[in-house]
């Protein structure tokens, strides 16, 4: 269990890796880090700004409701005192969302700045990060996942690889990333990704490996009270980002 504590603060922040205790110790807060895929960020920003969820396509309702719930549980949203999610984006997603000029981009940018934390890597650890992610991408590619029509790896592979580097669940609605009901064996891809992450990142057999989840699946997992994956490599974040996560957690008290 990773513990961050700030001097002069009574609260200790604990990144959750165990089931929710029946009685939380006073002054302790369980924060779960989750990475969001680009489309999820855009949809969440849209929900935050103005979308009436009741008017969306009925087929997508559960997806939008799950996003809204996640947004409500975000420690930065101030809406719930018991909020327990810290919504993050990988450096790749941040790059994808950079610069764009549309008025919608303005809303997304504003949303990202206010409510999300970018997992920016420390310059000294950049090589380790890039080479580990490249290895993960190659292995996903070898297994035939996250490929484009020419058989090359896509940014989906990079996003999953970067979230996996931190052992953080990546939330996506893309059937290329998550389980897809039309696949012969929808769970197979997830199992293969779990194996690749486990071997490449050298998890011990007792550790839980984070894999891509749909928002609805992730909320079900949260509510089930089962053990969750423990974030790793957070010490390789840029100091300011590390601090920001700490601030986010303390802010949520």
């Amino acid at each position: 269990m990773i513990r961050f504590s700030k001097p002069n603060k009574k609260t200790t922040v604990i990144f959750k890796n165990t089931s929710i205790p029946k009685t939380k110790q006073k002054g302790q807060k369980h924060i779960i880090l989750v990475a969001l895929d680009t489309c999820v960020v855009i949809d969440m920003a849209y929900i935050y700004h103005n979308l009436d969820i009741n008017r969306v396509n009925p087929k997508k309702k559960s997806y939008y409701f799950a996003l809204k719930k996640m947004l409500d549980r975000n420690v930065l949203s101030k809406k719930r005192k018991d909020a327990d999610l810290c919504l993050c984006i990988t450096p790749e997603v941040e790059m994808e969302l950079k610069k764009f000029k549309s008025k919608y981009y303005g809303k997304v940018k504003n949303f990202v700045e206010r409510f999300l934390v970018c997992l920016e890597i420390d310059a000294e650890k950049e090589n380790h990060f890039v080479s580990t992610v490249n290895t993960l991408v190659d292995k996903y590619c070898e297994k035939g996942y996250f490929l484009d029509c020419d058989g090359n790896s896509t940014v989906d592979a990079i996003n999953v690889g970067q979230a996996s580097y931190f052992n953080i669940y990546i939330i996506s609605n893309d059937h290329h990333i998550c389980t897809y009901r039309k696949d012969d064996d929808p769970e197979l891809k997830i199992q293969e990704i779990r194996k690749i992450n486990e071997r490449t990142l050298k998890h011990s057999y007792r550790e839980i490996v984070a894999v891509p989840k749909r928002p609805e699946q992730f909320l079900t997992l949260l509510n089930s009270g089962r053990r969750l994956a423990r974030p790793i490599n957070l010490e390789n974040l840029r100091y300011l980002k590390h601090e920001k996560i700490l601030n986010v957690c303390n802010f949520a008290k």
Partner: protein
Amino acid sequence: MTLYIIKELTERLKEDISTLSNQEKINFFEQIIDLIDEEIDEETVSFEEFKQLIEIKRHAMGKIYNLKREEE
């Protein structure tokens, strides 16, 4: 107008660029990204079009990633 641009960009992504050098291919995809980032009129893009443009940008970024790794 934006729909026309989306169609154009989608077609450009399918162009045969096999005769170009790696650097030229990278420039080709970077131009597409720049066009999306800088040139598109911000007032005329709808939410759905915005998402489509991001998808095109992601596609181009994936191509650049693979080309740069090939070069390495």
